[in-house]
């Protein structure tokens, strides 16, 4: 079907098809038959735009009967002699309409006939069909009740009768459950679900209803509904322009999921999305909903003119809102009156005025915003549960925490200060011993200097402490002799000799630590064995303070030995420590958090500190099992902390004093036409705000879902239909104007719209009605001749057969492999992504960042709805399957079929990994034979059992692969090594690898990508 989507003008032909099949006795229907011709060929110059015809002055308007009559273009007595007919059939290129240089087609014979017929019937005009309020039509008479499950079928079968066609049979249960499960949840049915339905002894419709009810109450239903809404709402996780940096708007996305899952009526949904902030009973949650109109891109480019971009944001809201709710192409009227629809440029700016009062800026316009928790808030709960579970597990291990604490306390270093008996400066500085046994260097101040500090051990020495101390006599009261107050200790050397005659031998230092380290001047550089300009520094120029470095020796120095410490300063610029003190300890120091925590009395420890201490002790002393639990616990605690931090969501807000609005000349921000001020309002042809009601966004929102409004219900229902059947009843789901397509089943559309409104805008109910129709439940199998008769299935003589959307394809793979993490809501995640994609497009230091590749299942295996969406680099496997960039509102995706899609399915690690896990499921399925295991995998992927021929191909492929891997186990390992989630304890690697290849074949079947 994608083929036909390409031809913009196909809709005209569709109408002609409809027309042609009605026969000669049918009267002409203006909206169905005539308007499409006039609009497409004539309105560009003779339409609603009074400034039309650029230069070619004309006042004739063909959208207005009075004007047409005034110009005398109809001859009612002799229609074929009418000026209108004469001009569209003229052989003279100068007088022929449409003029050859307009790039418009000439009228066909059939079209001329329609116009003549129309004139002969009095050239009656009607308001455009979609502006007429829908009435509930009478149901056509049904002859064969077997073809009738509900009202929808009456309209469809009635239409088919005109074509002399009959509907197809009802699809088999396998196909049905696959179709409806994907449609309502975006996921495949599980084998258990399939079997339960297939084996359900209830009659089909009863059994089917149970399935539909189950699906509608699944949390995955809300996710699936939200996914489509995100395209309309051009939702993304980045801001779009220039460096396209991250924004956090996901709490709004969670609101949408929750609204669908709780089946919020669509009228309330609409009012809250557009004007939840203006409701008299507004809450944080209704304000949150208005993030809808803040999802547009926002620029951070330094040089922009603020007002230019602010104007673009407001225009984006006009375009998005008018497309999503009204199916109108207001965007055309930004620069001039609409060429086809009765929307003037004034109308555009009246609509614009609804959205122009946000206290926002163009550059970095990220406010106003609001910190509100996600209505799902499941993340926090989930992590809390996990913490509790892990705590429990840890408690079960009965770790002797108290004993460990006692043990570890013994290890705390007891420092003994060493008096400076002999201190030497190689550069000739003079050491001065201070009261606290520290040494202050005075006198000569060479550019570089080495100190020697000699002492004799009284007790065994396991660690040495160096204190660098500030002194008023030093530069700026720092601890340094350098001009700026900083020092660099290049190397710290400890030497020992056993007797007076022996020579000094170096002592190995096991580790060094310090309480402060300057960036790139860390203390470990003092024991790296390289005597150079690198070393330990402490930002002494900006942060002069006492600092401590500690050195643990590999083996303690016994008592009674002579020890020489060398402090080498080789940086230059006199970056020497100016005052220092040396201590020694018989026990090695513990450094870092453990020591800090032990220093806190038991009574004063917070819960957090107690936990931390316990976890540190487990890491130090615990069994491997306990250590693993603690590692997990630390991760989960960190996640919990993250989850409880809620980002601010951008929302709508109204300024107390609205900004004045003028028509903008050619739509340009800096050309307001001061003589043409406008106030908020609607195009007269479509409707008017309630008199006495609010004349602002709230008034607009209320009007959108009022019973006085012809478009919202039709447009919304049509999008649902498009989702379920591949093509809408109005194919141009984004355009219900004159250039849009006339509905294939106008009565059906109206019936559904009225049903939807009268149900109280009950979304689940209307979806249930549609999926319970026989029309939806038909088989999609088709003979080639039937296919050629109706390739797009516009007549609905068969069931829908549609390629899955990008997100559904990935979710399908995760689901059939059993990997899917079904968690709902929360911050966006980072699944597999090719290396380097973000930076290759955008790598400015300080502005750009690389894709944060993840290894944890929580990031890799969530539904695609939660994938982090960067507008300028959308996830490539999704873009390949026609997902939009989300830079602007999209209500209809293309559906292509390309080689790049094949490469994604074959080689994207996400799919290869899923295949491995599907293979594992096959192995674990408790099926007795290779055949039955493969058949199980086949069913996971296609929702049906394989035929014998199909199974044979797969089993043969399996055997070949198995033979290969048996003789080449490294190849099996490579095949099993793709992706980050490992299968531990593989019994037979060759078998798993061979099955993995079979699973890849299954996941590359056309059927895997299709709901049929």
């Amino acid at each position, binding site marked *: 079907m994608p*083929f036909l989507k*390409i*031809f913009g003008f196909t809709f005209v*032909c569709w109408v002609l*098809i409809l027309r042609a099949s009605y026969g000669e006795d049918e009267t002409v229907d203006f909206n169905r038959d005539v308007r499409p011709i006039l609009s497409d060929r004539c309105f560009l110059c003779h339409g609603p735009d009074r400034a039309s015809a650029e230069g070619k002055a004309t006042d004739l308007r063909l959208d207005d009967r009075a004007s047409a009559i005034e110009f005398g273009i109809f001859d009612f007595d002799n229609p074929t002699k009418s000026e209108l007919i004469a001009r569209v059939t003229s052989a003279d290129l100068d007088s022929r309409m449409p003029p050859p240089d307009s*790039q418009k087609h000439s009228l066909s014979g059939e*079209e001329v006939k329609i116009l003549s017929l129309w004139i002969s019937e009095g050239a009656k005009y009607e308001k455009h069909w979609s502006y007429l309020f829908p009435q509930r039509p009478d149901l056509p008479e049904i002859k064969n009740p077997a073809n009738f499950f509900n009202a929808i079928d009456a309209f469809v079968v009635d239409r088919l009768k005109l074509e002399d066609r009959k509907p197809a049979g009802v699809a088999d249960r396998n196909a049905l459950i696959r179709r409806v499960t994907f449609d309502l949840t975006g996921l495949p049915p599980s084998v258990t679900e399939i079997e339960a339905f297939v084996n359900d002894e209830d009659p089909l419709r009863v059994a089917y209803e149970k399935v539909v009810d189950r699906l509608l109450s699944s949390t995955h239903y809300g996710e699936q509904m939200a996914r489509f809404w995100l395209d309309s709402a051009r939702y993304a996780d980045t801001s779009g322009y220039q*460096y*396209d940096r991250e924004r956090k708007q996901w709490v709004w996305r969670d609101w949408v999921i929750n609204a669908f899952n709780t089946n919020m009526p669509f009228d309330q949904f609409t009012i809250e999305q557009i004007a939840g902030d203006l409701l008299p009973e507004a809450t944080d949650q209704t304000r949150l909903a208005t993030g809808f109109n803040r999802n547009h*891109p926002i620029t951070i*480019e330094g*040089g922009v*003119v603020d007002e230019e971009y602010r104007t673009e944001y407001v225009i984006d809201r006009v375009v998005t809102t008018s497309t999503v709710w009204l199916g109108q192409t207001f965007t*055309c009227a930004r620069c001039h009156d609409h060429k086809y*629809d009765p929307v003037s440029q004034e109308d555009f700016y009246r609509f614009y005025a609804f959205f122009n009062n946000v206290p926002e800026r163009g550059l970095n316009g990220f406010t106003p915003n609001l910190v509100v928790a996600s209505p799902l808030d499941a993340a926090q709960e989930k992590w809390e549960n996990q913490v509790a579970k892990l705590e429990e597990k840890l408690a079960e291990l009965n770790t002797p925490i108290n004993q460990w604490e006692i043990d570890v306390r013994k290890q705390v270093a007891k420092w003994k200060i060493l008096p400076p008996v002999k201190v030497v400066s190689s550069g000739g500085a003079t050491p001065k011993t201070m009261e606290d046994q520290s040494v202050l260097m005075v006198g000569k101040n060479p550019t570089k200097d080495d100190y020697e500090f000699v002492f004799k051990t009284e007790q065994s020495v396991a660690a040495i402490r160096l204190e660098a101390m500030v002194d008023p006599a030093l530069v700026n009261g720092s601890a340094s002799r350098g001009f700026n107050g900083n020092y660099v200790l290049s190397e710290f050397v400890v030497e020992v000799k056993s007797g007076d005659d022996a020579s000094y031998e170096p002592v190995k230092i096991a580790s060094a630590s310090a309480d402060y380290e300057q960036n790139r001047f860390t203390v470990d550089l003092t024991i790296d064995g390289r005597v150079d300009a690198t070393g330990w520094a402490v930002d002494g120029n900006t942060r002069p303070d006492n600092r401590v470095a500690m050195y643990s020796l590999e083996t303690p120095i016994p008592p009674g030995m002579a020890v020489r410490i060398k402090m080498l300063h080789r940086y230059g610029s006199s970056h020497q420590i100016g005052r220092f003190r040396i201590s020694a300890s018989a026990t090695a120091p513990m450094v870092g958090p453990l020591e800090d925590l032990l220093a806190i009395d038991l009574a004063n420890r917070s819960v957090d500190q107690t936990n931390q201490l316990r976890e540190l002790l487990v890491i130090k002393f615990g069994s491997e099992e306990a250590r693993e639990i603690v590692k997990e616990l630390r991760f989960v605690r960190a996640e919990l902390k993250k989850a409880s931090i809620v980002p601010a969501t951008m929302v709508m807000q109204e300024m107390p004093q609205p900004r004045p609005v003028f028509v903008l000349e050619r739509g340009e921000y800096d050309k307001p036409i001061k003589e043409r001020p406008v106030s908020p309002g609607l195009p007269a042809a479509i409707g008017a705000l309630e008199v006495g009601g609010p004349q602002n966004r709230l008034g607009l929102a209320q009007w959108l879902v009022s019973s006085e409004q012809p478009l919202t219900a039709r447009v919304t229902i049509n999008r649902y239909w498009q989702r379920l059947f591949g093509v809408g009843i109005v194919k*141009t789901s984004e355009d219900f*104007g004159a250039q*849009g397509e006339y509905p294939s089943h106008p009565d059906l559309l109206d019936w559904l719209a009225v049903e939807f409104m009268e149900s109280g805008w009950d979304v689940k109910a209307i979806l249930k009605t549609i999926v319970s129709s026989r029309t939806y439940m038909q088989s999609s*199998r*088709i003979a*080639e001749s039937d296919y050629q008769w109706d*390739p797009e299935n516009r007549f609905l003589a068969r069931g829908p057969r549609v390629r899955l959307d990008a997100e559904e394809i990935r979710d399908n793979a995760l689901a059939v492999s059993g990997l899917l993490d079904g968690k709902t809501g929360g911050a966006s995640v980072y699944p597999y992504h*090719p290396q380097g994609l973000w930076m*290759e*497009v955008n790598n*400015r*230091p300080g502005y*750009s960042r690389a894709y944060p590749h993840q290894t944890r299942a929580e990031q890799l295996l969530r539904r695609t709805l939660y994938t982090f969406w960067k*507008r*300028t680099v959308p996830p*490539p496997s999704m873009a390949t399957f*026609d997902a939009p*960039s989300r830079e602007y509102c999209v209500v209809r995706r293309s559906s*292509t*079929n*390309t*080689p*790049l*899609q*094949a*490469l*994604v399915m*074959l080689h*994207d690690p996400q799919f*290869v990994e899923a295949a491995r896990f599907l293979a594992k499921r096959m192995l674990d399925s408790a099926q007795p034979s290779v055949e039955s295991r493969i058949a199980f995998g086949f069913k996971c992927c296609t929702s049906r059992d394989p*035929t014998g*021929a*199909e199974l044979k*191909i797969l089993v*043969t492929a399996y055997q070949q692969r198995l033979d290969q891997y048996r003789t080449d186990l490294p*190849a099996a390992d*490579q*095949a099993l090594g793709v992706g980050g989630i490992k299968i531990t304890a593989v019994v037979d690697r060759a078998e798993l690898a061979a099955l993995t*290849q079979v699973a*890849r074949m299954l996941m590359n*079947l*056309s*059927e895997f990508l*299709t709901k*049929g």
Partner: protein
Amino acid sequence: MHPFDDYCQRQNRRQFLGASSRVGIGMAAFYSLMRSGKPLTAMDDQQKSLAISNGPGYGPGNPGPVHFPPTAKRVIYLCQSGAPSQIDTFDYKPTLSKLNGQNLPDSIRNGQRLTGMTSGQTKFPAAQSIAPFRQHGKSGQWISDLLPHHHKIADDICVINSMYTEAINHDPAITFFQTGHQQPGRPSIGAWTSYGLGSESENLPAYVVLLDKNSDPEAQPNYSRLWGSAFLPSNHQGVKLRSEGNPVLYLKDPTGGSLAQQRKMLDGIARLNDLHKQQVGDPEIDTRVAAYEMAYRMQTSVPDLTDISSEPESTFKLYGDDAKQPGTHAANCLLARRLAEKGVRFIQIYHRGWDHHSGLPSRHRKIAKEVDQGSAALVMDLKARGMLEDTLVIWGGEFGRTVYRQGGNESNFGRDHHPRCFSIWMAGGGIKQGYRHGETDDWCYNITRDPMHVHDLNATLLHTLGINHEALTYRFQGRDYRLTDVHGKVVQSILA
């Protein structure tokens, strides 16, 4: 043909593709269609099926119809993102040496808006070119010493000194240049070309994008929308050929299977698909099989393409040693030539280091050195292979730079964005050689002769490909959109 007949004909997909020259897919004008390349009927079924599914001009090896005889079969677009300074490269202004340091008169600036970066500046002292200009070739083309390799192609290129645009900042300006609209939402030039003309290659996409590795610390970002398809079917989006990892995303089998094994697997998949097709009758299944076949062909053709080891040493002499380093401008220029040889329709290269608001004299020199040899070599190489005559090469940024200094002093300064006049060059594909078009005033601030708008450039580009820019349209939201919106004039005076 009447749309109705047209529709009936298309009801039968196969019949349609077997159908004749009247298949004016995607084009509103049916009357002057001509055909190029091999006949549609010669395509095998698989390719037909791909073409049908993915729209006009998609079938690999199947060029779409054109409106009149093309002078170019393909385009190589060397986009100098960030915006090179016309004053220092191609727009020779001898008067500026006298005006150097003088404040830009109000009479010249004429109240034009400035970016937020210099609108607060109180003085606008002019800065002359950072490099001397000389005449080159028989044509006496003026080119500055900043681009010495360009001196050798002086007689091949057509320099346009009178380009202008509407945007004053990078994102809207480059989006405008590549899609004809400042805001996101319109298809890129390459996507339009792919849509209208498709590929001549049976195993490569019609539209390929190469991103130069960036070396400037303030590099411009790129955006997928610059090679996106917007409302056109998404198969028309540009395919990135990457210098790291898989040259085309997901090209290699990560499980380490050989091509022979891949072949076997695809055969198995195809047989299964075929069995299912017999059951359900959905012709999309055949298309899927065809797509997998082309994917398989890409697995061999792309590595061949990117493997430059077969290039003789003379190639690297021409393009410079940079060409051995994947991701450099020179390497990408060389790849562009190889892609052109294989029938890729539209090849887009992005360099993005030209945005120098400070330190321009040294930074412009560095970037010019990165770009100069590869760009010039490409033209010489195409010429030597006889391909320049039907390959259109375009070189230019999204706007120009100001004659006045941004900050700094006489020897070290920046130049701000300048949309009111700038220079690009075009070569080959039916464009005049050794020619100069348009003129600017003594301050290099305003255009004084033959202004050429971005839409005019794009109209001319499509014209060389045999496409009437007013007739290559796609209906979206009730409107027949085109690359040039409702503007654009083919600049006849630069056509050879």
